[in-house]
């Protein structure tokens, strides 16, 4: 509560300041009209370069990848289980399965844990502890992925090998490492969503005689729903796109994982594993894998936008 009121006052102060600055620049602009124009042009130029860069990268990936997809056939490329690029068989079916297996297993534990943590941080923790946890989450987000991978290799894999069996290089190892990596995304976004629920909702619910837990479950979480779904989908996007840590711990066999302890290969791993030595059609096949990933991420982003829009219509924020 304290946190929230503080935020509001800081917010209004910033707004007041902004107004002051604006009126100041307005006064100035009558003297130096051209300087304003210049700044505007520079800003626009930067934005244009940014858009051009995105367009160029997307176009490049498509140009390098699409011809191979059409050559192999879309369904064959996506569903064939045989990946032997140096011998001319290009099917990424096993990697689609691998990506889904690792990502979903990671979400399975990271979503409940992330959500519980964010509820705790906003609703239950004393403000000071909440802030401290916020910094810890930020720290978690700042650790490079190769470090997570290394940790997985040295700690998690021997653990799985000794207590659960198999070689340890497995879907499970990937899911554990990935889960930790997407926790910050899930916690940060769902925490913001929960904190943004108007105080009136909670106060009203408590006034009607609901307990704190009932208010969280029946009022606050439903009101923050669109933000929480966004958090999950963005976490999923991060999990699908993550590469370095996954390559190090999943074993990278091109098979459909038959259990949580079986090794597997994700689409991102496929690209980073083989790009060093790939040439010709093999290289094109890696770009084609990139195209599939690209489309996956675009779809996820669209879903995020739609949920956010739906959330607004729902009247939560």
């Amino acid at each position, binding site marked *: 509560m304290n946190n929230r009121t503080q935020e509001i006052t800081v917010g209004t102060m910033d707004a007041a300041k902004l107004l002051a600055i604006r009126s100041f620049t307005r006064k100035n602009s009558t003297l130096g009209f051209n300087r304003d124009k210049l700044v505007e042009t520079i800003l626009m130029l930067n934005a244009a370069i940014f858009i051009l860069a995105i367009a160029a990268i997307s176009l490049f990936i498509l140009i390098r990848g699409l011809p191979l997809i059409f050559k192999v056939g879309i369904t064959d490329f996506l569903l064939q289980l045989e*990946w032997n690029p140096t011998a001319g068989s290009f099917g990424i079916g096993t990697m689609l399965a691998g990506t889904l297996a690792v990502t979903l297993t990671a979400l399975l534990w990271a979503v409940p844990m992330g959500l519980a943590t964010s509820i705790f941080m906003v609703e239950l923790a004393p403000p000071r502890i909440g802030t401290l946890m916020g910094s810890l989450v930020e720290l978690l987000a700042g650790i490079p992925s190769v470090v997570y991978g290394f940790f997985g290799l040295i700690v998690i894999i021997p653990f799985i090998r000794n207590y659960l069996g198999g070689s340890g290089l497995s879907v499970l190892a990937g899911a554990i490492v990935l889960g930790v990596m997407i926790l910050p995304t899930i916690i940060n976004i769902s925490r913001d969503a929960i904190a943004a629920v108007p105080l009136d909702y909670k106060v009203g619910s408590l006034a009607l005689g609901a307990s704190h837990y009932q208010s969280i479950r029946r009022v606050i979480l439903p009101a923050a729903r669109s933000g929480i779904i966004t958090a999950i989908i963005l976490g999923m996007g991060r999990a699908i796109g993550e590469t370095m840590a996954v*390559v190090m711990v999943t074993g*990278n066999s091109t098979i459909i994982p038959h259990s949580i302890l079986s090794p597997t*290969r994700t689409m991102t791993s496929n690209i980073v594993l083989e790009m*060093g030595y790939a040439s010709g059609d093999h290289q094109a096949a890696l770009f084609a894998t990139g195209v599939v990933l690209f489309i996956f991420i675009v779809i996820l982003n669209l879903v995020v936008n739609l949920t956010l829009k739906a959330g607004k219509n729902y009247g939560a924020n």
Partner: protein
Amino acid sequence: MEYVKRRRLTSFVLLGLLLLIAGLVAGCGRQEVADKMDGQQLRGTITVAGSTSVQPFSDVLAEEFMKTHPGVQIDIQGGGSSQGIQATVSGAADIGASSRELKPKEKSQGLVETTIALDGIAIIVNPSNSVNDITLDDLRNVYLGNIKNWKELGGKDSPITVVCREAGSGTRGAFEELIMNKQNVSNQVIIQNSTGAVKTTVAGYEKAIGFVSMAGIDQDVKILKFDGVEPSVANVKNGSYKMSRPFIYLTKGEAQGLTKAFIDFVLSDKGQALMQEEGAITVK
């Protein structure tokens, strides 16, 4: 208001400090280069790119060469044999490093090959493994997925975890050519994409088997005899150890100037001795 102001001030100070440090570091770097430029006759920069198996040798050779020729800067990049070959063709690299024989299509692009050393491929297992020897047929069957238990190779009754390099790797290419007899490696195998990763996996797991460049061997893994032959420098040179491959430097057309000077140095007694120290097998 006061709080916000102070925070802004702090961040400005921090940013300033950061820039200052960055500037200092950059400045130092430039200083060093400038010093080197005052050296002897040979000067300039060349880039060596390609096989990660050759990279450690190129590093050592370049370091020594730059020591005797302070005006020279040699940049060593990895990327893999295929990338090295492409970079040489495109002119992005002055020298391409390959740890496999060139394919006919690659040969037709006007590249000149210089074999700078030989390398043996060693079959490695965990030091705790009781198996000492493996035959060609058994090895092939292990990688085909037909032999699945160490018992069949005279070891303990436990499943074999097969570790292999990724498709396209020079080491894997050589291994397939020498062992697999045109059959595909089983898709059940664990794939690791560097010599170090294969070694780490085998060193950490008593049921694993893998293959790496002989130069990359250390105490953490146990080397198997192959068809009864010890993988030693002498045995690779005299041809009795069958699993070997060349390390090749490529240039677009005949090497000239600085590039030629460097390759000559690599082939000199001193260069070859350096490579031998690092574990490669000299060509002479």
